Every structure is written in structure tokens, then in C-alpha cells.
């Protein structure tokens, strides 16, 4: 009976063993984690997933990844993961593998096949470890290289989010300062030179004239200075005359720069080159060591690669716009200070001039006692009738670059008793402590413990936190002063021994006071941040960090760029190369026959290509603006939107498939106003704003009294020439179409993140490119205002950056950054050509092929024997059942068995829509 039972038991065991052996590892792959060969269990199925696109949103970027794999805890594997399963394990330094393995960091992996070819590479993530008795199992997920590449572009080694300022653009010795400049008319003029003539940094950043509206903040847009003789106004009247060669014009209302023909240097919209971004991203030093191939983009229509720029925040907003914390740090100097100073710190990182630094500094004081005997230090010492207490005063001072004191913290008092403090002024008198009139104590800290830490150095118990605010700080110093107070318990009286003394030490009978102090950094992290209350003006130093400390990371900008233009990222394992390709290049005109590869026995699942919304919208977030807002209120949709009717009749919802892109939409217009003129009365040039009634002119006498003279309105006999010479009188220069970044009240909007195209130069007669001048201090109470002294009749040449490029002599839009054709334009006489929009050029044919009512999704198991299964298979066409298909997804492809693979195919209506769908 027992024998029969055993036989039945063995039969079951045998049956179970056969079942479990069904998917055993027979292919020889080698998995290396951090260059260490992993011992893979025969049951460790390495299953990889490859996806071309998310069918619910074709713009999402997909990375290959593995199903979680199990790695057995062999001695070799335990070493790779640094014996992670041991509960008391700690990381000494942090690194890739072994005792330094850090599960919080991405650990590189590579999988080789039998021939030594790389099947996959990327980074591994340890998900968890399971211990059952002596059996240890590591659960690990593997991610393809694309994710690692994007991570490198998004976060630095400290886990801080990268910004555009984090990238090295020019390869100079000092990348942090490579784009720094002083904002003035010379810088702007240099930036507006031809590309081949200008400094390299102006190919990274530049300035785009735009309709920015009336300047806000510290700017008097209803005032102007002018040499009166230049515009036919009197230079004097009686005892009143000009000052510094100018009269002040008190304008009847606020005007913008285009009305007064005064392009102020710091009011020009900074822009950033997308080409420079892509070039920087392709630099292995910026991306974690990857090769990046953008060569396919040279074929991209619309010059999207070469001439694409993105708007940045206006310079006056930078000061108040930024509040830096992560990019600034306090660094302790090893030397450069001496008693009574016991620590010196400087700020690492750039801050705008005029910035008020808010700093929190945390330290602990140390003291050094010359080695006489083994002794302990005390904060108090009883000797006869009195007890002596050591009392310390510490304060942090801020200094500017010239070494002048510019700020101070509150004073901290350390003693072993609630010491009755004297006033800071008293203390200053006695201890030569430079306490100011307004200095105050910040309490008394009791400290009864002092610990010997090394040699004869003692560490005070208290960690002291100092807060200090000061403007334009170069460095900080900590100052210490000490005194001794004697307390007589019998009489309950205090006497103060106002000499510089310190902590007592025993067991000597005589008191000896240590005189050497220092400090060490506290445990609480230091912090430094700034807010700049003043808006930045002419002459301000603009740093790369100020201008490019963007909200989004380089990875965000790259991904959004690919999403907008229907580009794909490919990763080559063997060469560690990321290629950004158009859809035309993505698909190879090669078709594989699946007739003898699809496993019919495992079933084939067919479904219609269903959407989840009636409408798919292609739209970017609107930056706003007068016409953009009007358009939306009238048309009900954003300017430049493309709506696609998917034919899905089960709801009427809309879905923005460009949701989440970082680029914004704005409107290109040609502005119209009464001031786009050049007016002469006789030989005298007249500012165009003088067509309005009510302006006055200010002159001054010797005692600085003012007189106001009325300015007569322009006579009807004056010679008026319109800037627009193409029949659209009252409009801006015809081909000077620009972004509208102002609201209906002609106030500026933030307007950053808008993609624009460079479209040549235009000339603006009598316009000037200017800076603030010192006369504004004397004549307009220090507030910047317009300068309306006319420029040359030839004018100045300004670059044109906006959302279109033109054909037909400039009268038709040939390439547009709009997704769809707007219902109306705010540009007179312009034609929107067919096929000009992003949707038409990059998406339309492809989307139509997908939306076709006959397009199906097929899921089945395929035998890929003899073929290398990788992302590359997603770039081919497949024939099955009389139809053409593309492979959209490979699910759980086993790198270790020969089993057929689960695949998802999308039916193709016309192969040309894939191969030549982008124009």
C-alpha cells in the first residue's frame, strides 16, 4: 500500500516537473549588472516589452522594459548586490555594484546573446529582496537605455532636476558663465548681427522684438526724454532751459516701444535656440555618455531644426521671477579668517546683482586647549566663594565683495546658566565686539557639556543657527567674544570680569583660559536663497543661470519637441546611440511574411482600432494675448488648434493628445496703430505720438524749478509717411510680423515657452535701440522712461521671429507652427497655404491611416525564430492574411526561451502614409 502511494506520489512529482520545465532556459544569454556577470537561474525568464506607441495617444515616448525578473541569491549574485539581504547592511560610498551597490541609483545592465551581441542595455532597478530560509531572491526590473538617457537629461547626480542652465553649450573652460552678458544696447545689437558674424553665445540666446505691450514695473511709459532741437521743440523759455541736453516730455498716456520708436535693450524678449538645445543634448558630457544622432532632422520640413527658437521670460521679470534655493549653496572656506572670527563661508552659484540673500547658517563652536595635562573643560568652575561662568557671544556678519560689512545676524549667547545678559552695546564697549545700534540678543543657550573630540579640541554641545539677510553678499564670517562672570552665592551677586576669557579647565588650581576657537558645520543643512526686489535694467549682469533656470528639464523640452513634430527616439544598444528620426525614416520599406510564423494554435484576437474620444485635439497651452483671447471667445477654440474627428460615436468628448507638452502657443500678428508713421513738419521730425493732444514739455531753471510747456498737436500739413509700404496704412512694417505677447489692455503677458521661427530682418526708420541713461535719474526721479530723440532715416535692422515662414514674396504662409489653420488671422492680406500646418505636415497622413474604418488591431503569438527580436522589428511591415501590418507591441518576449511571442499589430491601409507621410 505504501509502495503504491509512493509510486502515485512520484508520478505526480514527475508530472509537475514536466509542467514546470515547459519554459526552461535554453538560450544562453549573459546578463551583466554593473559589468558583473549575473548567475541567472534556469527559471529566471527575462521577458522584454517593446512598444512603438500608446494607441490612445500616439505622441507618448515609449521605452523598452523587462517584466520583473528573479535573480537567485548565489554567492556571486549576493556580491553584485552588496549582500543587500543582510539587514544591517549599509552603503559606505554609494556606487554601481558590490559593497557600494546603491538601490536608489540606476545601475547599468547589458544582456549579451550567445554570439556576444548586445540584446539589450540600459539600467536595472532592484525592486525587492525575498529571503526564505537560506534562499535569497532578488526581484529586479530592467529598463532600456532610452529611459536612462532621458533621466540623465532630467536629473543630476544629486537627484536635483536639471534646467536648461545645466547644459554645457559652448564647451568653454567655464560652462557656468559661458552665456553671461551685460544687458545693454551693444549686447542686443551684437546679438542681432548675421549668424556668421556674431559671437557664438548669440546663437544660443538672442532677442526677439515682439508686441510686448506697455512695460510694467519700474518704468514710466508716460514720460520721455528728448533733445528738443531734434524734434522742433523749444530748448528754453526765459530762465528755463534743458537739463543735460534733454527736455522731459510728459505724455498724455502710456505708450509702448513701437509707438515711441524706442527699443530699449532690456525690453527685448530673450529667446533660446532649439538647435542649440539639441546640439547640447547630443554632447555626451551633458547626457550621461550617450551618442545622439540628430542627422535625420536635417530633412525635417519647416526648418524646425535650424531656425526654431523658444521665448524666455523678459529680463525685468528675472529678478522677481526667480527665487533660487537649490542652485545656491554656502561653502565653508578652509582658511582666510583669524580670531576673533571662527568661520568663513562664501556663496557658490550665481545670483543677480541687487539680490537680497536670505541665509541660514548652522555651526557648532570648538575650542583648542594647549596640551598641558589630560583635563576636562567646564563651562563653570567653583572656586572658593564664587563660581565662574564662561559666557560666549557669537554673531554672523555679511560682507560685500570689497570687504565692507553689509549685514549682521542677531547675537547668540552661550553659557551654562541663564545668564543675565548685558546689552549688546555694553558688550561691544567691553569686548571690542562691533555690535551695532540695532543689534539684539537672541536668547541664552545653556551648555553644560563640552566633549573632547580629537587631540585637545573640544566641541560645544549647542548647534547655533544664524539667520541673516543682506544684499549682494560676497561672504560671511562668524565672530566670537567671551567673558567671565563671577557669581557669589552668599551675597547672591554677580561681577563681570570684562576680559577676553574663556572656558575653564581643570584639574589645575589656576584657571587657564583657552584662547583658540573655531567652528564646524552643524547637522542642520545651511540654506541660502534670494529674492530680487528690483527689476533688472540696462547694465545688469545677466547670467546663464538667471536666464535658463527653467521650470522644465532638457528632457521635457526634447520629449515635447519630438511629440509636436511626430519624431521618434530610437536606441541602439551596441553603440549606445540615441537617434531622433522622422516617421518617414522610422519605418523601413521591408515586409516580412508572417504566414508561417503566426501560431494559430494559440489564437488570434482581432479588434477594431477604437478611440476613446470623438475628438482628438492637437493643441498647445495658450500663452494668451489680445487676439488669442478674442479668437477663443469668438471661435470657441484656441487659435491654431487642429481638431480631428475620430469617428468614435460612443461619446462626444475631446482629448488633447498634446497634453503635457511644455511649449506654448501664441499668435503672430501685424500690429495696427496710429503711430506706425514717420512724420515731418517741414524739416523737423515729429514723434508719431504727437498726433495725440495733451502732451507737455518740462524745462528747468537754475534753482531746479520746473515749467510746463504745452506741445502742439501735429498739423494737418505735416508730411506723414506710413511704415507699411505695402498698402496696409496704419500697420507695422509689412514683413515685420511678430508675436503678440500683450493683453487687450496692452499690458505684457509672461509669454515664455513659445516656439518661434527666424524669418529674416526688417528695417525700422527713425527707430533707436537704447539703454537707460543717467539723465533719467536727474530728470525723471530715477525712473526709466522713453527716449524719443529720432534715429536715422535708414533706421535700424531688427530680426523677425514669429510663428510662420512665408512664400509667394512673403504673402502666403508656407510653414506654420500652428497645429491647424486658424479661422481668421490678424495679418492683413495673407494667405494660409494648404499643407502648411504641423498637423498637415507631420501627422495628417499617418492619423488618417490609423483612423480608417478598416484599420484593425491584431494580437497573436509569433515565432520569431531566426530573427533578432528588438525595437528594430517595430520599424518593419508585415504581411499576414492578405493584409499589411505594422508591429506596435511585443509583450513579454523571452530572451531565454524559444516560445512564440505575443505581438500586437496595427493594420496598414497605405504603406506610403508611413514611409512618406511627413512632408
Amino acid at each position, binding site marked *: 500500500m505504501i509502495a503504491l502511494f509512493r509510486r502515485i506520489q512520484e508520478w505526480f512529482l514527475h508530472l509537475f516537473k514536466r509542467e514546470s*520545465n515547459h519554459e526552461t532556459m535554453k538560450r544562453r544569454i549573459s546578463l551583466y549588472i554593473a559589468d558583473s556577470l549575473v548567475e541567472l537561474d534556469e527559471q529566471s525568464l527575462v521577458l522584454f516589452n517593446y512598444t512603438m506607441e500608446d494607441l490612445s495617444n500616439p505622441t507618448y515616448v515609449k521605452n523598452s522594459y523587462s517584466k520583473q525578473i528573479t535573480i537567485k541569491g548565489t554567492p556571486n549574485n549576493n556580491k553584485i548586490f552588496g549582500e543587500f539581504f543582510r539587514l544591517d547592511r549599509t552603503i559606505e560610498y554609494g556606487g554601481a555594484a558590490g559593497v557600494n551597490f546603491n538601490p536608489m541609483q540606476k545601475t547599468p545592465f547589458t544582456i549579451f546573446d550567445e554570439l556576444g551581441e548586445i540584446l539589450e542595455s540600459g539600467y536595472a532597478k532592484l525592486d525587492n529582496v525575498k529571503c526564505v530560509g537560506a534562499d535569497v531572491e532578488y526581484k529586479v526590473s530592467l529598463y532600456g537605455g532610452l529611459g536612462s538617457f532621458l533621466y540623465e537629461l532630467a536629473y543630476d547626480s544629486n537627484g536635483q532636476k536639471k534646467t536648461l542652465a545645466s547644459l554645457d553649450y559652448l564647451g568653454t573652460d567655464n560652462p557656468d558663465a559661458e552665456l553671461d552678458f551685460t544687458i545693454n544696447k551693444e549686447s542686443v545689437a551684437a546679438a542681432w548681427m548675421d549668424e556668421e558674424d556674431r559671437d557664438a553665445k548669440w546663437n544660443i540666446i538672442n532677442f526677439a522684438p515682439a508686441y510686448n505691450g506697455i512695460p510694467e514695473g519700474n518704468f514710466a511709459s508716460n514720460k520721455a526724454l528728448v533733445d528738443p532741437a531734434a524734434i522742433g521743440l523749444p530748448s528754453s523759455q526765459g530762465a528755463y532751459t534743458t537739463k543735460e541736453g534733454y527736455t522731459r516730455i510728459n505724455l498724455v498716456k502710456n505708450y509702448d516701444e513701437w509707438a515711441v520708436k524706442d527699443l530699449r535693450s532690456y525690453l527685448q524678449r530673450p529667446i533660446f535656440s532649439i538647435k542649440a538645445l539639441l546640439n547640447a543634448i547630443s554632447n555626451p558630457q551633458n547626457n550621461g555618455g550617450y551618442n545622439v544622432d540628430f542627422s535625420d532632422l536635417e530633412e525635417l520640413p519647416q526648418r524646425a531644426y535650424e531656425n526654431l527658437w523658444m521665448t524666455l521670460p523678459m529680463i525685468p521679470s528675472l529678478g522677481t521671477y526667480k527665487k533660487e534655493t537649490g542652485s545656491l549653496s554656502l561653502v565653508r572656506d578652509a582658511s582666510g579668517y583669524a580670531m576673533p572670527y571662527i568661520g568663513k563661508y562664501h556663496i557658490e552659484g550665481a545670483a543677480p546683482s541687487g539680490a537680497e540673500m536670505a541665509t541660514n547658517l548652522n555651526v557648532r563652536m570648538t575650542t583648542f586647549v594647549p596640551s598641558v595635562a589630560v583635563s576636562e573643560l567646564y563651562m563653570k568652575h567653583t572656586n572658593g566663594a564664587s563660581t565662574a561662568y564662561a559666557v560666549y557671544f557669537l554673531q554672523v556678519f555679511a560682507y560685500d565683495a570689497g570687504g565692507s560689512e553689509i549685514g549682521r545676524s542677531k547675537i547668540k549667547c552661550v553659557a551654562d546658566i541663564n545668564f543675565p545678559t548685558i546689552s549688546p552695546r555694553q558688550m561691544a564697549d567691553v569686548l571690542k565686539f562691533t555690535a551695532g545700534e540695532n543689534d539684539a540678543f537672541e536668547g541664552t543657550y545653556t551648555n553644560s557639556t563640552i566633549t573632547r573630540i580629537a587631540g585637545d579640541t573640544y566641541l560645544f554641545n549647542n548647534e547655533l543657527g544664524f539667520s541673516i539677510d543682506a544684499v549682494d553678499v560676497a561672504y560671511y564670517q562668524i565672530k566670537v567674544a567671551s567673558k567671565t562672570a563671577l557669581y557669589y552665592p552668599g551675597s547672591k551677586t554677580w561681577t563681570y570680569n570684562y576680559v577676553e576669557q574663556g572656558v575653564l579647565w581643570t584639574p589645575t588650581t589656576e584657571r587657564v583660559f583657552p584662547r583658540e576657537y573655531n567652528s564646524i558645520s552643524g547637522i542642520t543643512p545651511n540654506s541660502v536663497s534670494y529674492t530680487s526686489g528690483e527689476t533688472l535694467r540696462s547694465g545688469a549682469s545677466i547670467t546663464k543661470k538667471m536666464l535658463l533656470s527653467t521650470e522644465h528639464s532638457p528632457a521635457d523640452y526634447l520629449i515635447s519637441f519630438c511629440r509636436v513634430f511626430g519624431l521618434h527616439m530610437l536606441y541602439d544598444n551596441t553603440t549606445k546611440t540615441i537617434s531622433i528620426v522622422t516617421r518617414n525614416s522610422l519605418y523601413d520599406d521591408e515586409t516580412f511574411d508572417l504566414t508561417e510564423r503566426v501560431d494559430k494554435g494559440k489564437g488570434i484576437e482581432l479588434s477594431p482600432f477604437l478611440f476613446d474620444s470623438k475628438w482628438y485635439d492637437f493643441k498647445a497651452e495658450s500663452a494668451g494675448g489680445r487676439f488669442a483671447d478674442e479668437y477663443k471667445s469668438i471661435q470657441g477654440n484656441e487659435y491654431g488648434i487642429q481638431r480631428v474627428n475620430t469617428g468614435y460615436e460612443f461619446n462626444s468628448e475631446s482629448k488633447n493628445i498634446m497634453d503635457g507638452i511644455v511649449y506654448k502657443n501664441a499668435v503672430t500678428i501685424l500690429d495696427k496703430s496710429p503711430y506706425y508713421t514717420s512724420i515731418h513738419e517741414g524739416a523737423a521730425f515729429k514723434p508719431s505720438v504727437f498726433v495725440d493732444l495733451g502732451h507737455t514739455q518740462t524745462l528747468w531753471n537754475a534753482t531746479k524749478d520746473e515749467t510746463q510747456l504745452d506741445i502742439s498737436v501735429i498739423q494737418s500739413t505735416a508730411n506723414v509717411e506710413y511704415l507699411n509700404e505695402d498698402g496696409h496704412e496704419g500697420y507695422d512694417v509689412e514683413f515685420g510680423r511678430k508675436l503678440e505677447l500683450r493683453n487687450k489692455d496692452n499690458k505684457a503677458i509672461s509669454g515664455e515657452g513659445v516656439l518661434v521661427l527666424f524669418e529674416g530682418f526688417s528695417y525700422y526708420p527713425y527707430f533707436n535701440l537704447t539703454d537707460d541713461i543717467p539723465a533719467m535719474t536727474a530728470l525723471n526721479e530715477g525712473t526709466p522712461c522713453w527716449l524719443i530723440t529720432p534715429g536715422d532715416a535708414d533706421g535700424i535692422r531688427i530680426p523677425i521671429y514669429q510663428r510662420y515662414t512665408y512664400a509667394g514674396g512673403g504673402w502666403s504662409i508656407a510653414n506654420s507652427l500652428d497645429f491647424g489653420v486658424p479661422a481668421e488671422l490678424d495679418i492683413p492680406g495673407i494667405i494660409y497655404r494648404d499643407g502648411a500646418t504641423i498637423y498637415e505636415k507631420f501627422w495628417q497622413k499617418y492619423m488618417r491611416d490609423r483612423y480608417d474604418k478598416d484599420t484593425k488591431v491584431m494580437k497573436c503569438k509569433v515565432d520569431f525564430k531566426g530573427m533578432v527580436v528588438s525595437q528594430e522589428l517595430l520599424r518593419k511591415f508585415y504581411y499576414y492574411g492578405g493584409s499589411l501590418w505594422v508591429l506596435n507591441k511585443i509583450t513579454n518576449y523571452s530572451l531565454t526561451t524559444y516560445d512564440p511571442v505575443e505581438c500586437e499589430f496595427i493594420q496598414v491601409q497605405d504603406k506610403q502614409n508611413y514611409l512618406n507621410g511627413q512632408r
Partner: protein
Amino acid sequence: MANPIWKDYFIDFGDLDSIIYRISYEEDGEQKVIFVGKANWRPGTESNRVRINDICADYLVTRTPDLVAEDVVMNTYPEFLVEIFIEDAGVWEDVTTVIFTPDWSYKTPSPLVMADPIRKTIDRRQTFLHSVFLKRSVSYTITGLHPITRTIDINGSGTISLQNFPIQAAGISIEGMGYRLVNTCAEWVVYYVNAYGGWDSLIIEGNVTERDDLTRHNISLEHDNGIAESRGKRNYVNELTKVYTLHTGWLTDDESSRMHHLLNSTNVYLGNLNDGRIIPVVLTGNTTDYKTYKGNGNRLVDYTIEAEVAQYMTRK
């Protein structure tokens, strides 16, 4: 004094609470750190202690000698250095050094003898193996009509493999242990790492059977039923697992008591005495019976061992 690796070995950090420690050993002239941990004081105990034998076990390496030629391989049984981190001074301070033997016998005291053969018989065609622990040199004598004594310098721990014995040799005497050289009809010998971490061998005197376990992989395809060679179902790959079943032959109670060295081993090779093939195998048995004559109905005992070839085979 070396410590058996199976026996718990604690490092006592005294009254140091929450101390960072690390373990290292010297490799190629450099100190290689194998583990960094933080030791916390267990409540209710008198001092802060950590157990390190388990950590060090993976670093005791018994190398495989050449099983078909004369050879000496050195094993790695290093001296482990335990240090603690002095946080205030920022330096590592030595605590102690420890030497372990790869002894999984669970016997006290550790014998420091690495050979414990089941039968002490050597077929003339096989390779003789003997392992030593921390020796400067090893002398052995080939006994018989004209005994020959030789010495091998070893300077450490290692395994000596010997071949091609003189025809008149009767046995080998080594470190006080005598082996008998025999002529057998056996086809197979098993080489294995015993519980002490040394290499021993056992001649398989009973029957040996061989079989292949198959796993077939099929696929169903489109086919043209008008063409004879067109297949709707295809067997595209077969996986093979080769299994040997070994019968040891009769064993005495004394010999049987040492079978655990083989049956519990994680490192076993099959050697073919006729053609010299060496086949790495994995034993599949899940139990080790300590059989005796009395317990077996007053009959001599034997063992049946199932061994899977440790290499994969497929046919496409």
C-alpha cells in the same frame, strides 16, 4: 586557529552602540571590502555583537583541480579583517582578524583534515585527489615493492591531483591516510567536494543507466494541404536533459556513514574511466539516508544516486 564556517562566530564591539563596521580580506595585495554594516545593540544582551561567519562563507573558494592530469590548485581561504568606523575622527580602526575553514561537517571540533573518502580505494585509471588546509608542503608515498616518497610545496590551502601510478604500486599513503590502488571493471568514478571543502572520489561499482528527458516545443501554422511537405504542426525545438542513475555497489556501515559527503555535495563531476570524459553533474536527490547493515535487514547497503548533466542540450 581557524574556525569552521558553519559555527556561528561573533565579533564583540563591546559597549559601542550603533557602530559601522566592515569586513575585508587581502586580494592581489589590496584589501578588498566585502561587506559594510551597521551593528546595533540587541536589547537584553551584554554587548554589541554581530555574526560574521555567514558573510564570510561566500568568500571561501574551493577550486576544481584538473581531473585528468597531475595538478595543484590553490584554494582561497583568506584571513578576514574586521574594522569599525570612528566617526569623529573619520577613520577605520582594526578590531580583529578571523580565519575560517570551509567546514560544513557540523562536527566539533573542526578536524582541519580535508580528506574523508568513503572507501579509500583508487582505480588506477582515475585521478587521485587530496586537499590540504594551510600547509607548507605535503609528502606522499606510493607504496608497493619500491615505495616512492615525494614532497609537493603548497604554501597554503589547495588540492593535489595525481595520475599515472607505477604498475607495481599498491597504494598511496598521504598525511597518515592510506589509499588502496585497485583494478576494477567500473566505468564511472564520482569526484566531489566533501563536507570539509576537500576533494574526494568514489568508484561506482554498481550499474549505471543513462536517459534523456525531452521537452518538445510545437507550433501550429498555416499550411497548404496539397503539398506533402507542408506542415500544419511543426516541432521546432526539443530540449534534452541527460540523467545518469548510479548504483554505488555494496557499502559497509563505516563507508555508508561517509556517504553524506557525496550526497550533500554541491560540486560533483562524473568521470568516465574508459574514455576519460569529465561530466559536471547536479545530484537531484532530496534526502540522505544514513543506512546501516542492521537497519537494512542484515544486508549490506547500497545507494542509488540520480545525477543530471549540468549542461543544456537542445535539438532544432
